[in-house]
């Protein structure tokens, strides 16, 4: 039985490994968790196909199509079912659901295969031939070129030129928007290091000056400013660049809410 059902045993093994990975490897470890991918896209469908269509009844291509399609359908309908449970659609609930379906179907397939004889290569309907060295080289070269295309495009997209910019913001602190402290921030997205000067006015009077804020590209500066008085109408922050010290570069205002 073992030899005849090696495919099912492999499915069981991958399923168990996938479940173990879900519960032992953190979600941000993609390299560790990527091995759970077949549990979504292939295994449930393959196992169910094995139950419904015993070996020899389908060609490899038909089985592949049914495995992929059934897996997707099972996940969609399973997601709907999970939504109605208190667990919802989470990694753990997905893992348990898909593993249960897959392992249940594997058991059913193993039971169904018992006592059935399968004859030689006709089991799969198709015999997949290998490649000659020359064919292998051509395919290998094609794979390298596809990888090159992906790298070229990804680098091009990441390095696509865009006009640099600086963000300036002002927010009231404390949440109630009635506090006398404000939160200020500058973010340099100019693609080069920048020197800024920041002036804060309260009702037209300067209350704070940061004469030099140096930021490298993609660097951010933030500060909390306690205003000298709680009664004010408007706080204004003006940002200047060192290269154009008299021209307002960015400008934000905060109206006091009473």
């Amino acid at each position, binding site marked *: 039985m073992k030899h005849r059902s090696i495919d099912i045993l492999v499915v069981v093994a991958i399923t168990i490994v996938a479940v173990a990975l*879900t519960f032992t490897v953190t979600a941000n*470890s*993609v390299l*560790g*968790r990527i091995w759970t*991918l077949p*549990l*979504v*896209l292939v295994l449930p469908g393959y196992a*169910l196909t094995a*139950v*419904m*269509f*015993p070996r*020899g*009844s*389908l060609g490899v*291509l038909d089985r*592949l*199509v*049914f495995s*992929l*399609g*059934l897996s*997707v*359908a099972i996940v*969609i*309908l*399973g*997601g709907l079912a999970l*939504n109605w449970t208190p667990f919802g*659609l*989470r*990694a753990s609930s*997905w893992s348990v659901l*898909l593993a249960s379906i897959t392992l249940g179907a594997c058991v059913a397939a193993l039971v169904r295969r018992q006592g059935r004889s399968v004859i030689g290569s*006709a089991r799969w309907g*198709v015999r997949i031939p290998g490649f000659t060295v020359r*064919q292998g080289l*051509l*395919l290998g*070269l*094609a*794979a390298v070129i596809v990888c090159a*295309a*992906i790298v070229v*495009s990804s680098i*091009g*997209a990441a390095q696509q*030129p*865009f006009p640099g*910019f*600086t*963000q300036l*913001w002002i927010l009231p602190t404390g949440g109630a928007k009635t506090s006398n402290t404000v939160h200020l921030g500058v973010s340099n*997205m100019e693609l080069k290091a920048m020197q800024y000067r920041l002036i804060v006015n309260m009702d037209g009077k300067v209350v704070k000056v940061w004469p030099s804020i140096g930021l490298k590209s993609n660097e951010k500066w933030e500060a909390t400013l306690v205003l000298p008085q709680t009664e004010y109408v408007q706080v204004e922050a003006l940002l200047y660049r060192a290269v154009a010290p008299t021209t307002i570069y*960015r400008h*934000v205002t*905060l*109206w006091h809410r009473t």
Partner: protein
Amino acid sequence: MTSVLREPELLADDIIITVLPTADNWGWLPALSLTSAVGLLLVALSYNASRFAIQGSEPLYWFGLLMLFLPIAWRLFSPDAARRERIALLILSGIALYFTKVLEYPLYFTYYDELLHVRTANDIVASGHLFQANPGLPISPFYPGLEIVTNALSSLTGLSTFAAGSVLIGVARLLLVLALYLSYEHVSNSAQVAGIATLLYVACVGWFNGGFSYESLSLSLTVLVVFAIALRCAVGGHRGLILMICLGIGATVITHHITSYMLTAFTFLWMVTSFPQSRHKKGYVGPGGVALLALVLCVVWLQYTGDMALSYLSPHFDSTVHQVSQILAGEKVTRQLFHGGAGFVTPLWERVTAFASVALIVLGLPFGLFYIWRYHRTNAAALALAGGALGYPVSQAFHLIPAGAESADRSTAFLFFGIAFVLAIGATQFWLSHGPSWRRATMVMGAVGIIFVGQTILGNGPLWARMPGPYLVSADQRSIETEGITAAEWTGSYLGPGQHIATDRVNTLLMMTYGNEWTVTALNAKTDVALIFTSLQFGPEIETILQEDKIQYLVVDRRLSTGLPWVGTYFSVNAANTLQSKTIDPAALTKFDSVKKVSRLFDSGDIIIYDVEAITDGSPTASTSKSSSG
């Protein structure tokens, strides 16, 4: 001569079909893999050239696409290729053409519909549950199949939504190619016809169906269901196939409304064409039961979702009917073809090729229809496919109606299921049936090349939409760039998610996905939000809009005043699909600076974020005399 497979046969109680290979070699696959890979690399290089505004990107793009497509087409049209080689070539071309879409924007989703679905996917991740409200596409959470599978993938693997979605659509694409091939092969009993038809379908149905959109996934499931029905009709009531069909229809119904309706319509058409068979063939299991099942499931889901699909689709339908009646009454002129937003006119050669492509398809249909009638008229599935193809000329007429143009584009994915089959039958029976001839083969390849290029032009939009490049005003994917993305991320981080924000079309997408904000749009607003940004004065009318729709923040993109919108509108899509003809006045976008109690919280040069909650809360306001410093 065509490669003929033996008839599917019932071997035992639970044995369906075993199609035997005709040869044991891979034929031209290795060499054509290389040409396809080089074609893909050329396309990737053309994208980079376009990104860096280097001349010559367009010829490189077309050369790459044709290098990818034509050699495979040539081989698939040949009667010599083995079944295995054909299948491998179809997988190769299907995946390679999908990659031409992925490589355009390989770092994140940028297409309009993709970002709408990203919001639904993000909501499921955040809440762990379905049916969370989506401000940009309210119907999307109620057809969550795509997002459910993406959630399963990203939850289990740790992949981002972009990576998980891209893998899923790639797998859906693979499933589509294989299911199409098997369906066509089953109906025609010819690997050659199946190969040609599948290639025509995959190559001619545009990028929209390769994007992260519910239709991309549902199409694959639908074709799989059709294949399962075809098998069931051939072998009788196999329990496994019945389960397969039920699961497939169920998944399709909760993935995409239109696709599930099209599947239902097709199965009913198939039921009609199979009447003669059901009357003369004892024990014949037709698609009637499946058609009824599909109808019932569609109705049940429609009821469960509170008729969301009807309220979503009916404005488009009403608008189309209204415009048709206006055109017939002479009150309205037809839509100017190949004229888009911002005054963009498709280049002459593209227009000619697109027209030639449609003409070749329309002219090719009678050949296929003739041979289907002659040799396959007892084949109910072939007749149903032929019937579906007849809708093509009608669908093309909808391009002349402003509100119908999008429907015409989107119907291609469904109609081409039949068109590709009819054209493949016509090509093999009429054009390629007289033995090897270089002249005929060249003519056929030329026609196929024109159809491919023309359908790419029609399906993937105008040149600016097909290629990445510098920022364009209101141009969907061409307007998604770092300044907008970081502004949206800033709102999510500093203002918190779920704020009621009003903004333009592109920043709506960014705010609802990268910022996770509740964007107020024409779809969910009580008032005309666009007026906030187009009115030159900040008056009581705008205050009323802000108050009625409880808008807390305005995101103003000053670049809107630098040009007309490339997609035709600055704000949400209107059902009438009319083009904006007037640029927004810069003063309309800077007026908020002079309004008392409107805080200017964020300034990144082009994008300004205003806090208008004081007005929404009902505080009295007045314009100040302070001028904008820009």
